[in-house]
């Protein structure tokens, strides 16, 4: 989820490469008295409209004994309101020809509807009902707890390497609440009282913690009028929003562990702590990950998958987070290859980048690939809406969407080598081996 998020974040418009006339993304924004921030982007090419609300609450805003709340709300918030029958939220949207979805990360919770443009008022009504008076009752909690249980089973317990994020975060953070993944603990959800859920809603689902984005075939004046009609009466939150102020201490020793899972083929995971998402080095790190494993001609894929054939697959993913995420590298071993062998070869290639940097030819190719990906990323209204919202919330400036290309253009070949040395620090990392459960029995 976050990868996609990050990638979209990058794609806004980038690189100062001379021949490229990246179109500026125009938008209008305003604030309501209750603190709701509203961003509008008009594009009348297609008669569709995306309406999204980004709540600035993720798993990092949870209490350590109540993890999973933010993600649980992503489900609970479809239970309806005094005016929307239980379970009808999705049916209403679909019956008007739309689709919807939502996701939760460590930092944010994001809801969106994609509808024909003559249904904008409906979308605003639905989102305003959610913000004003969403149903938070025992029946809803009980129903959604079962759904989340099923989701956890499907996406984490039964999926090969499904616990990867949970196990990695647990070891990558000793102090910061990034220690737990958004799925959280079912025990915590079971233990929580209905009042606690209601309090969470009152604390975080308030207009002063939300960004409403409307992108597509809209009329600016009409849109603003409807927004004011539906959202102005929602009261501002009374408490200060809880945001953890914790600095994760730098690790000085490697953390190494073995996870036994329902898998057939061993995997090697390495995780390196990253700077804050807004740190300039984030761009070089993102490019570095593309250099290492992006596409068939990338360094590690070419060497470990094609040439040596010791890995079935390999990927480097910079999981970028507000307070500093993790650079996760995972390799799945080929049949009969020991994880130790694979890890040694991965380390060798990291070392190679740190010592020798990368060639001019490869850097040029890398720039071309990234540029192409970034440009293509702003091709949908849904992508633009999310990008605008994130620019405002995470980077504190909606216009950031138009600046990314320039920032990317400043990354040099030397930066890639420098960040490889600075952040891919072998002594302060987390290393996990995923081994088949059958290997555990006599241990």
């Amino acid at each position, binding site marked *: 989820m976050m990868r996609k998020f990050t990638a979209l974040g990058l794609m806004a418009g980038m690189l100062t490469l001379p021949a490229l006339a990246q179109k500026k993304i125009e938008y209008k924004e305003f604030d309501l008295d209750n603190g709701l921030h509203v961003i509008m982007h008009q594009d009348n090419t297609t008669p569709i409209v995306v309406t999204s609300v980004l709540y600035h609450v993720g798993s990092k805003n949870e209490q350590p004994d109540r993890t999973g709340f933010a993600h649980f709300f992503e489900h609970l918030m479809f239970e309806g309101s005094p005016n929307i029958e239980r379970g009808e939220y999705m049916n209403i949207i679909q019956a008007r020809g739309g689709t919807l979805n939502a996701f939760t990360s460590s930092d944010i919770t994001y809801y969106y509807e994609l509808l*024909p443009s003559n249904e904008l*008022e409906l979308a605003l009504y639905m989102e305003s009902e959610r913000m004003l008076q969403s149903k938070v009752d025992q029946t809803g909690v009980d129903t959604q707890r079962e759904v989340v249980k099923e989701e956890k089973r499907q996406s984490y317990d039964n999926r090969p390497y499904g616990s990867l994020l949970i196990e990695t975060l647990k070891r990558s953070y000793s102090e910061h609440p990034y220690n737990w993944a958004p799925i959280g603990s079912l025990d915590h959800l079971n233990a929580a009282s209905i009042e606690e859920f209601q309090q969470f809603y009152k604390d975080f689902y308030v207009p002063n913690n939300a960004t409403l984005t409307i992108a597509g075939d809209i009329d600016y004046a009409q849109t603003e009028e409807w927004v004011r009609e539906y959202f102005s009466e929602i009261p501002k939150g009374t408490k200060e929003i809880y945001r953890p102020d914790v600095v994760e201490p730098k690790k000085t020793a490697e953390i190494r562990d073995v996870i036994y899972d329902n898998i057939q083929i061993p995997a090697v995971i390495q995780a390196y702590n990253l700077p804050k998402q807004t740190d300039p080095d984030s761009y070089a790190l993102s490019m570095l990950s593309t250099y290492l494993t992006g596409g068939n001609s990338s360094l590690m894929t070419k060497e470990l998958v094609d040439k040596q054939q010791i890995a079935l697959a390999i990927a480097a993913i910079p999981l970028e987070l507000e307070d500093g995420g993790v650079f996760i590298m995972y390799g799945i071993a080929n049949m009969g290859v020991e994880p130790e062998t694979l890890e040694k070869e991965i380390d060798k290639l990291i070392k190679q980048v740190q010592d020798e940097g990368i060639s001019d030819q490869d850097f040029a190719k890398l720039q071309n690939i990234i540029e192409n990906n970034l440009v293509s990323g702003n091709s949908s209204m849904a992508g633009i809406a999310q990008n605008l919202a994130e620019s405002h919330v995470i980077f504190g400036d909606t216009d950031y969407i138009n600046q990314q290309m320039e920032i990317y253009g400043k990354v040099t070949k030397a930066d890639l080598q420098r960040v490889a040395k600075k952040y891919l620090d072998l002594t302060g990392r987390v290393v996990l081996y995923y081994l088949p459960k059958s290997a555990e029995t006599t241990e």
Partner: protein
Amino acid sequence: MKKIAIAFILTLLVSVGSFAQVDRSKLPESGPAPEIKIGEAETFTLENGLKVFVVKNDKLPRVSFTLVLERDPLFEGDKAGLTGFVGQMMMAGTDSRTKEQLDEEIDFIGASLSAGSTSISASSLKKHQDKVLELMADVLYNPKFPQEELDKLQKQTLTGLATSKDDPNAISGRLSSALVYGKEHPYGEVETEESVMNVKLADIKSYYETFFKPNIAYMAIVGDMDKAEAEKVVKKYFGKWEKGDVPSFEYNDPTPTTKTMVGLVDRSSSVQTVIDIAQPIDLTLGDEDYIASRVLNQIFGGGSSSRLFMNLREDKGYTYGAYSSLAADKLVGQFSANASVRTDVTDSAVVEFIYEINKLVDEGVTQEELEKAKASLAGSFGRSLESPATIANFALNIERYGLPKDYYETYLQKMNALTVEDINQTAKNLINPDNLYITAVGNASEIKDKLAQFGEVIMYDNMGFPAKEMAAVDADMTVEKVIDNYIEAIGGKSAASAIKAAKVTMVAEIMGQQLTIEQVFDNANMRYMQNTLVGGNVMQSSVIKDGKGLVKVRGQSMDMTDEQMDASKMETYYLPELYYGTMGYTLKLDGIKDVEGTPAYKVIVTTPLGATVSNYYSVESGLKIKNENPVSGDTFYTDYQEKNGVMIPMAMTIKSAMIPVPLEAKVTNLELNPVLTEEDFN
């Protein structure tokens, strides 16, 4: 002062007015349906006949070029599979670029370039358009067609074919096509090992020279390019493309069945039945019924709120999903309703399908269903317009199907004007409930008799050909005789019983790695050992001795459960048929079956705890030619050779859900009655 106050109050009133509480008790009404602005494609034609569509969209600095050949469908006959090779062969290098060079040049500019038998597509950032066009033109004009690439593709295709022969969905698709279109129709023919290997380099070259002609080609250009520029670049890169005569082909319409029939493929290891109920339909894009058919299908089986899904999944719980389609095609279209269901509800599921089909044609749809389907289809139509490629596609369709210029412009209006009566008429026009092909792929011994209620049941093989007629089992044939015949065929009881122990090494290749299976059998002491090695490393080993079983994976071991022991014991005898009696197994003769063309007696063996395997013994030779094991999959035995007076299979093909491709294993070492030590079982 007063004036000001009044103005102030007025302002206040106005602002209060505009913030008056909205009525939240009811949903906002839809606004007036938006005008669908389908950007028009501009068009021009080169002297050589290449017709070009330009859809300018400069939101992003990207441009794509798609070349499409409009030729009649081809009946490939004894070279079925030919067209599947053309695209990759064209991408395998040109006169001036090796495949590696071509790949690198594409990657370097972050572009994409691919080809098929009737298309070449390229896309890149605007600034790289000249480079990508140069590469595209090189592929179009100068493909090299290297023999080694064809060899590689043929090998890959054979592997894929082997896999698809055991894939129930692939089998179902072949059977439906064979019945609906007939084997002599381009849509009904199948690739076989023979036809794939029959394709020669000269065939590919000849195809290329015949069909890659500008006078049957369309090019769609979508992105940051206007018509003037398009004319310039198309002329530059495709102006010298020479036209030529392209043959056309006609085919007879398939003759539909006169009454509903059942086509069945026996796949006895199946726990699910793949059901597909199909018939040919006369439906082409642009037909009077076309838009109504989209609505009809949406109501019937287009999604998770459609009738089939609600009935077979939500109400009955027979399946994870049940869907339908009404495919339109210039030659002949197809109606299909399908689901994968549990074996024991196969006939009940067919009953529900038939019920729904009859109900649809007889009683039609409701106003509410119609409204929902319209909203859903209008929504997805609108969303599809976000991609500029959709506009290019519309322009191509208008040209290829001779549609009115405003066909898509007015598509939603036409759809919204449809009434319940229109949809009901379309259902009657397209679907005939009395002459359906009901196809099923599943465990025939469980479902064949139950399917007879729907029509005559005809057996087919896994390639969609009528199954060889299997003689009925002679009245005096018994399961004991099958086993006795087998023992006789391998050399007689005394020679077979003389083999008390054996060491076997088999070697196969999997994903480029060598896989070795080592087995040691010790009948007298009921001991057994098996090691599986990949690339020289022991991946897994099993040992049975002293009445206990142990499985080791990566050096860690685990005891077998009673059930596992019970099932494994059956596999531990080198020639288990000699011991079926003493082990207390139950044997059942289940008729004569077709094993890859060889008639064979099927014997179901059941252990005391209820585990079963099935063995197939050739009717003619008496030899065991196949074993079906629910855990390890299907094993086919071939290359029987005489060793110590006993016929032993020296080659095996193993098919299992656990491995992606069939494993071809050869016995590389065989020691009969070797001296065994404790070490052999550690």
